[in-house]
């Protein structure tokens, strides 16, 4: 059977030599392009399933956390909001900053040390000052911050978007 097939094929090719091969190569190219298109489609389907952040399985879409009344926060102190993944710091001039508790080294949760006035990471001993700036490596950059919004005397923190920074400057502080 096989031999016969090959035989008829070669016969076919010799009979109409030029047009047949170009048609064949054209069809082959079409197959190739279709294959690539199919591959891209498959990739699109895959990426739909793998896309991070879209699968909100816990059901909460609210990223704005109401921290409390402005007047409730003492000057010059740091308040832990562990469920909201941040510390709310209030400085001596009354400004607020929401500092992420995720260490910039390998993502452990930093702890506020009231005696030393430092954020300390338990994993690799990185430490940060009250502005979240690195005192002790291996952490490579200051702790991220979250946008603070003050409306009608209430402090709200948007935990949806951590803000990366390379250094501390006063524009990161929000005033009432």
């Amino acid at each position, binding site marked *: 059977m096989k031999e016969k097939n090959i035989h008829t094929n070669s016969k076919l090719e010799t009979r109409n030599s030029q047009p047949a091969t170009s048609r064949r190569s054209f069809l082959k190219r079409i197959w190739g392009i279709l294959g690539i298109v199919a591959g891209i489609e498959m990739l699109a389907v895959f990426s739909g399933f793998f896309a991070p*952040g879209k*699968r909100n399985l*816990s059901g909460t879409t609210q990223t704005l956390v109401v921290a409390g009344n402005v007047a409730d926060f003492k000057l010059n102190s740091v308040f832990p909001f562990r469920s909201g*993944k941040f510390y709310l710091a209030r400085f001596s001039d009354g400004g607020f900053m929401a500092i992420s508790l995720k260490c910039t080294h*390998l*993502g*452990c949760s930093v702890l506020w040390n009231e005696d030393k006035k430092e954020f300390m990471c338990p*994993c*690799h001993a990185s430490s940060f000052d009250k502005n979240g700036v690195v005192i002790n490596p291996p952490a*490579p950059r200051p702790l991220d911050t979250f946008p603070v919004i003050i409306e009608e005397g209430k402090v709200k923190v948007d935990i949806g978007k951590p803000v990366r920074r390379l250094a501390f400057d006063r524009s990161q502080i929000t005033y009432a």
Partner: protein
Amino acid sequence: MQDQPKLKIKKRSNFVLHIHPATVLIDSIKFNRTFGLGGMALLLFLIQSLTGILLRFAYVPSPDKAYDSILYIENSILFGGFVRNIHHWSGIFFVIIAFLHFVRVFYSQAIFVPRRVNWIIGIALLILVIFSNFTGYLLPWDQLSFWAVTVATNMLSYIPFIGEGMLRIVRGGNDVGSATLLNFYNFHTGILPITMILLMIWHFWKVRKAKGVAVYEGISDYRVPSYPNLVLKELVTGLILIAIIFLLSALLNAPLQDRANPAYSPNPAKAPWYFMGIQELLLHIHPFFAFVVIPLFFFGGLIWFPFAIREGRQGEWFHSEKGKKLALQAAILALILTPAAVLLEEYILHIEDWLPGWPKGISEGLFPFILLGGSLGIYVFYLFRKFKASVHEIIVALFTVFIMGYIILSIIGIWFRGEGMVLTQPWNI
């Protein structure tokens, strides 16, 4: 009529045993040719499949229910804890045995044509075994698993350009959460085992195509039937392994700490034990080098070796007697110098402070990396001048340095790092 049942038995055993040839070289089935490591790895895969299927009936892959389902397995299912223990200990054995198999194959030089492709398949399988263990690590959703996976996946973020994106894809978001758990569960119980089965079939077929395990030249060509000569040895090895795992599982429980709490990191928070060598390295060198450059050098070199140097003495341990001597020397050297380097760096040298004001990528990355590479270069030159070592022997020695170095770094990371990752004695952790 009496022949009928006998024939049936023979047929059935032939079907199961067709993984082996009918006869094997008598010298190729000596235990110290392979130490039975590949077969043990296969057995461990089967044990993991069986216990894993059982655990899947009770496990729920969601952050609210995962921990409770583990408690349910431990407390309410008859032998549930025992099955989980077997899965836990076999998982650890699997990583160790697969690693030893990899080391054995390299040292017996069974990596050149016609085994070259199989060497790469084997490396892929080793990596899949490690990822299988890693994805399983998260599933109990206790403090240990949550923080180990947080720390280990965060290492991805140090890969330039694509790292952050990869991290988000692996986690299914910014943090380890429900999407991460579902991802890991799906990989652990679906994608990884299926991929491994396909690769294993290819792996075993390639071994058969290469006419069995690598044997040195001048071996006796006396052959014996595989059944019972080889099969009996496999059976005994397998039974001993099963006995050890059962004994361990009866005596020691798989760890289960408190329910995962994203707000509190335990101190110290460590990656899974097989990544502790990398985490230890991270304390001394910039993450990009610890996590990307050095592993790339190692695995890249291992794949490059049989392609660049096409010929080798397959089946000859350490390539030659000199290779064996140099490997031993390299092992002792790494055994002494690795802890010495860690101690010196920790207490005296502080290499990261030598270039103040330079970017961290250079002062903590490139610079120590060049120091490391330079000392390896001097070592290679020394091997070449003093011992007139061949390329094969030098690579055997370098492989030994890497393997021994990684083992020592892992031991330091696992047992000698206490609170805040400070060096301490094992009994203080």
